[in-house]
C-alpha cells in the first residue's frame, strides 16, 4: 500500500454511519406497519449484508 495522508474521521466513518442509519430505519419501520413497510425494512436490513458481501468479493488477493 502506498503511503498517503491519514484519512480524516468523516472519511473513515461516513459510509459506516450511513449503513448504521439505514439499518436503524429498517429496524424501526417494520414495527410501525405491515405490508409495504415490511418490504422497505427488508431492503434496509439487506444493506449491511450487501456491504459485507461486496467487501469480500472485492478483497485484495
Amino acid at each position, binding site marked *: 500500500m502506498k503511503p498517503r495522508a491519514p484519512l480524516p474521521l468523516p472519511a473513515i466513518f461516513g459510509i459506516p454511519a450511513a449503513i*448504521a442509519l439505514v439499518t436503524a430505519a429498517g429496524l424501526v419501520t417494520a414495527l410501525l406497519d405491515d405490508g409495504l413497510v415490511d418490504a422497505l425494512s427488508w431492503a434496509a436490513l439487506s444493506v449491511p449484508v450487501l456491504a*459485507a458481501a461486496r467487501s469480500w468479493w472485492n478483497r485484495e488477493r
Partner: protein
Amino acid sequence: MTNRTIRVWTLIHKWTSLICTVFMLLLCLTGLPLIFHDEIEALTAEHTLPPMPAETPLKSLDEAVASALATYPGERPLFLSFDEDRPVVNVTTGPGARPPVSQMHISAIDLRSTRILADLNDDKGFMHVMLRLHVDMFAGLPGELFLGFMGFLLFVATVSGVVIYAPFMRKLSFGTVRAGRSRRLKWLDLHNMLGIVTLMWVVVVGLTGVINTLSVPLVAYWRSNELAAMIAPYAGKPVPERFASVDAAVRTAMAAAPGMRPQFIAFPGVRFSSNHHYAVWLKGATPATNRILTPALIDAETGAFTDMRSMPWYMLALRLSQPLHFGDYGGLPMKILWAVLDVLTIVILGSGLYLWVARRRTAQDHADAAPGLRSAVGEAAE
C-alpha cells in the same frame, strides 16, 4: 487520538470481548434456531384445527378455563391468551398463584368445542433446550441477569471497537480486505469490516436482549409501584376464593377501552395482576399500536371495573424489546436477514478470538524483537 488513548481503548476492547465472547457465541448459536421457532414448531406440532361447520358458535372463556382445569385437577388458572387468527385460547394453569414455570401447564383449547388441541408443555425438546440455554443457561434468574451483564459487556466491546476502528482505517478505504498477505491480516480486516457494517444491528439486538433479561425485576417493580397505586383501596386483601366470570371481565374491559382487543388475561395473584383482580391486557387495533399493552383491572370477586392506566416507559421499553430482539415482526425475509446477521456476528466473535490467539503467539515468537505492547496503529500500517 494519542497513542495512549488508543491503547486504553484497545485494552477495553480486548478485555470486555474476551470475557463475553464465549457466552455471546452460545447466544448466537442457540439464537439461530430460535429465530425460526414458529416455522420449526409448525413442522412438528399439530396445528390444523379439526373441521367443524363454519358457523359453529364459540363457547365461553369460562368453559375453556373449566376444560383446562378438568384436565389438571387441583390446579388454578393463571393466564389466558388469545391466538391471532383462529378461535383458540391458551390457558395456563398451575398448583399455586406463582409456581415455577416447570410446574405450569399450558393447554391450547379450541373455542368451538372447548376440546384441548395440544398441551404446550414442551420441556424436553430441542427447542426448549435452545431456549433455556439462550435465556438463562438453566440457572434461573441469576443466569438471566448474568447473561444480561454479558450483553452489557458486548455493548462496551462494540463501542470500544468502533473507537479503535478509526486508527486501523486511517490509510484504508472502507471495506478493504487484504486477503493476499498473511492470514492474520485477512482476519483482522474481516473482523473490522464485519464489525462496522453490522454495528447498528448488533447494538440493537444486544441492548434489547439486555432489557429482556431485566424482565423479572422490571415487572416486580411495576407490580409494587404502578399496580399498587391502581389498586390502593384493595391493599392487603387476599386472593378471592372464587373468581367471577372471565367473559364478563373481558366485556367490561373492552367496554372501557373501545377499539382495543384483549391480548391476554392475568388471573388474580399472578405476576401480571393484583391479588384481587383480573388484569385484562388490551392491545391497540393498528399495527403501530398493537404492541402497546394497557392493563384494565377488573375486580375478580364482583366483576366491577377498577382502573386502567397506560404502561410506564420502562414497561413499554420491555415490551418493544421483544420484537426488536427476536426479529419476528417482518415476516420470513426479516427472519432470514436476522439469521445472516447472526452468522456474521459469529464470524466477528470467532475472528476476534483468533486474532487474540494469533497475536499472543506472534508476541511470544518476537518477544526479543518487539518488546512491549505494539500499538494498534503499528498494526494497521503492516
